[in-house]
């Protein structure tokens, strides 16, 4: 039998990674909320703390199952600390908060180490473990009494330690304790309880749910719900607003009768003592349990807030998190790609249907039939469009997923740099293709680091410039037509175009000659050039071997653009413009000699009739003046060594492509039409070919290549001469076959 752990089925392993990452992301998000609640002077929010505890608890369980020892060990220690925190044994200090943030960081790195993406951060884990242990030792005791309340041992006996703690703290804080009793039909208990929670929530904290009855009723269940509240019974009843729910106060025992021995305290988590439960003590006062004699476990019943995980103050917000538990499905994106493929097939069917319909309609004898068929075709087309947008919708995820992680980075980097940074995020709800989101986190991370590292000045420098001590880094996202725009803006020192130019010339990236022709804006854009770095020594932060050129390349790969605007002393703003989805692109189809190609509409400005007479040659490159600006021109037939078509086109067209601020005119032979196509990636076998972003089926069984405009522009414009020579020799080598 028994598979070993590492034989865990791939599917389970995949699920493990996806669940673990979700947990870690949630951890980070909750920490930020926790920090906020602490900073605002409210003290740690118990529900958030408990959410974190539960997350780490689950993570520990998972990592154990999957043989991830480091993850499991870290989680174990962390769980202890969080347990102490939520049970109030130790206070939540800034130092502790820092440790928790460190833990989130490490979790991320351990997970990616498990996937084999990087080495395990062994040292850091050990350091963190030591710090965690040190904190745990500081824990202080917290003792209280619950036994004075008229709670049946049967009730007390099933409270977890945490629930006991919540009950105790609420009672200590002077809240009243209520017992709600109701019968719920099992079929609808989830929704009925949710509703009840939402109602109770504003006036009290639910400690636990206790099923009563003997389970003999197959259709319904009696529940006792313990609620701690500041409100009077009448108010609670009003909040509950249901005759079916009985609300009664749990009173303190009449001490004069003093039959209850003082609550035997379960000693604090000593290791062995737990088993020797105070044995069945006579406790006649409360309506004691009946025959089945529940163990009278000792008593500090603890309240619990397990369901806290499902209900914070903002009822609506909680509602969402509840839904994410019960109503979402995780889907492998490849499955969606398969659906998308099937959809592509259906479009082909639709095309055929249309052709037949048109044919029938054109014959007088079958005209009627043709008309009917056209009607069917239209209905089919409508449904197809709906399905397509449905599938696309499924691929969409909110950018907030990445933004949350960035907030942690800002916090960390600004601390390390001793800078004060206010991070403002808007538009986290903007949705974008899942694949794009995944590719975005590195570039965004780098941009944010840059903003803090190079942008935001140290406090003295800011003071001298008359700026507030705290710098601002803003991350804004919004949708603009078929694009999502993401801006990273800082109010730091800005980029000096003259310094950039000087540097570029010194590094030999730009000739003195060219330098003179640059506008100030163009000069700033030089930071995107390969090998460019504004500081002589890379700092530990942003200088990790990648620069803005990588950001640009990555974004371009996603079919996006990067623009930069900066003003000295005012700040810098970098704007990413990305397609909403990768799967479907709007293209213009055109012909070069006899071959059809597609140009993504997102990268093109316009298409006009080409006037060869306007072309002149500069430095061996063809350029023309177009709308008053010099436009480099490339003849695609030549670039692609296209075999000549049997019939020469009499007139040619110029498609003006644009990526960021750079333009390129491409000469083609004929324009066909604009259409939406499903883009398919070229395989690894074609990995050596540059200039194409993918291919698509145009519906006539023919596959057409889609131009990769950023890479073509790069190729034709950047360091034109040397680059071109290189490519030529590269192509030549491949051309020989290996």
């Amino acid at each position, binding site marked *: 039998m028994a598979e070993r752990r590492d034989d865990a089925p791939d599917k389970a392993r995949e699920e493990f990674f996806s669940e673990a990452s979700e947990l870690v992301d949630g951890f980070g998000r909750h920490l930020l909320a926790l920090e906020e609640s602490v900073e605002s002077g409210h003290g740690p929010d118990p529900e958030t703390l408990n959410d974190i505890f539960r997350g780490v608890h689950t993570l520990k369980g998972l990592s154990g199952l999957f043989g991830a020892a480091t993850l499991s060990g870290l989680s174990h220690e962390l769980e202890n600390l969080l347990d102490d925190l939520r049970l109030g044994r130790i206070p939540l200090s800034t130092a502790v908060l820092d440790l928790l943030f460190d833990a989130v960081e490490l979790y991320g790195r351990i997970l990616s180490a498990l996937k084999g993406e990087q080495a395990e951060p062994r040292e850091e884990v050990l350091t963190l473990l030591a710090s965690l242990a040190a904190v745990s030792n500081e824990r202080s005791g917290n003792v209280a009494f619950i036994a004075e309340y008229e709670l049946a041992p049967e009730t007390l006996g099933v409270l977890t330690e945490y629930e006991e703690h919540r009950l105790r703290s609420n009672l200590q804080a002077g809240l009243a304790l209520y017992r709600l009793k109701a019968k719920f039909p099992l079929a609808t208990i989830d929704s009925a309880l949710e509703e009840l929670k939402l109602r109770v929530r504003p006036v009290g904290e639910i400690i636990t749910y206790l099923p009563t009855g003997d389970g003999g009723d197959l259709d319904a269940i009696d529940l006792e719900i313990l609620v701690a509240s500041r409100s009077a019974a009448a108010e609670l009843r009003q909040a509950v607003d249901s005759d079916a729910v009985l609300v009664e106060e749990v009173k303190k025992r009449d001490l004069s009768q003093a039959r209850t021995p003082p609550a035997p305290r379960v000693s604090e988590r000593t290791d062995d003592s737990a088993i020797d439960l105070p044995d069945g003590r006579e406790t006649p006062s409360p309506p004691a349990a009946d025959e089945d004699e529940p163990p009278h476990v000792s008593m500090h019943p603890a309240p619990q807030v397990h369901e806290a995980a499902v209900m914070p103050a903002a009822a609506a917000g909680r509602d969402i998190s509840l839904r994410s538990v019960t109503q979402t499905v995780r889907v492998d994106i490849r499955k969606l790609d398969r659906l998308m*493929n099937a959809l592509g097939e259906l479009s082909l069917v639709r095309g055929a249907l249309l052709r037949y319909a048109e044919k029938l309609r054109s014959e007088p004898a079958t005209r009627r039939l043709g008309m009917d068929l056209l009607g069917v075709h239209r209905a089919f087309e409508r449904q197809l469009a709906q399905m397509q947008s449905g599938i696309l919708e499924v691929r969409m995820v909110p950018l907030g997923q990445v933004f949350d992680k960035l907030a942690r980075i800002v916090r960390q980097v600004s601390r390390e740099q001793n800078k004060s940074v206010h991070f403002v995020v808007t538009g986290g709800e903007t949705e974008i293709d899942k694949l794009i989101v995944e590719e975005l986190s590195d570039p965004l991370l780098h941009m944010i680091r840059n903003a803090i590292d190079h942008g935001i000045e140290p406090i003295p420098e800011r003071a001298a410039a008359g700026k507030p001590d705290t710098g601002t880094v803003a991350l804004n996202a919004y949708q603009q037509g078929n694009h999502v725009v993401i801006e990273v803006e800082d109010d730091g020192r800005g980029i000096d175009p003259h310094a950039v130019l000087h540097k570029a010339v010194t590094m030999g990236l730009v000739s003195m000659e060219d330098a003179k022709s640059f506008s100030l804006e163009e000069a700033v854009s030089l930071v995107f050039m390969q090998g460019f770095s504004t500081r002589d020594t890379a700092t530990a932060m942003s200088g990790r071997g990648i620069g803005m050129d990588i950001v640009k390349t990555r974004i371009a790969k996603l079919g996006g653009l990067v623009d930069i605007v900066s003003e000295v002393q005012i700040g810098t703003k970098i704007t990413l413009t990305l397609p909403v989805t990768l799967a479907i692109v709007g293209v213009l189809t055109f012909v070069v000699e006899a071959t059809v190609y597609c140009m993504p509409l997102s990268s093109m400005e316009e298409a006009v009739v080409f006037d060869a007479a306007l072309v002149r040659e500069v430095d061996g490159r063809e350029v023309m003046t177009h709308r008053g600006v010099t436009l480099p021109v490339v003849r695609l037939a030549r670039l692609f060594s296209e075999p000549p078509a049997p019939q020469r086109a009499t007139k040619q067209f110029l498609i003006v492509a644009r990526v960021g601020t750079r333009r390129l005119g491409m000469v083609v032979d004929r324009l066909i039409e604009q259409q939406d196509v499903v883009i398919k990636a070229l*395989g*690894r*076998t074609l990995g050596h*070919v540059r200039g194409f972003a993918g291919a698509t*089926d145009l519906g006539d*069984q023919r596959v057409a290549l889609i131009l990769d405009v950023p890479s073509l522009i790069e190729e034709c414009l950047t360091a034109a001469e040397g680059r071109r020579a290189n490519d030529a020799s590269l192509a030549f080598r*491949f051309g020989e076959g290996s």
Partner: protein
Amino acid sequence: MSALIHDGERSDHLVFALAGELYAVALESIHEIVKVGPITRVPRARADILGVMGVRGRLVTVLDLRRSIQVQDAPIDARSRVLLLQVDEEDVGFLVEEVREVERFTPSQIEPASVLGGIERPYLRGVARRGPEMLVLIDLLPILPGREGSALNVGGQGHSYPGGGAP
């Protein structure tokens, strides 16, 4: 493709013709055999890559096996077929002149490739004799760009041919 083709030591091969010679590849490495559809040329691709072709909604990169292993050129005709392989989730096709049959070889029929003499080629697996005929056993994976070093069989259940890889 279905069912396991291993039968003790014997293994099924697909025999096809190329420039008048007979070749064979492990049948299990072939996902499907399809007719040649319109192929779109990919500019600047390696010379043996004919281009891309759509096969029921999937995009297949098609190589001309004749060019890949440098035997003489021949036109595509009605007998031409594309052998489809799935490699790392990528669909790759190899154009061959004509698919003949499936043949089962026993180890004793297979001789090391060195009997062919000439330069060592990573894709050569051995030679099988069938009566007077001689079939060249090849492995398609090492032919793909970026995978030249790989000597694995597609699909991973590597067959080893006795003496096949030995010098």
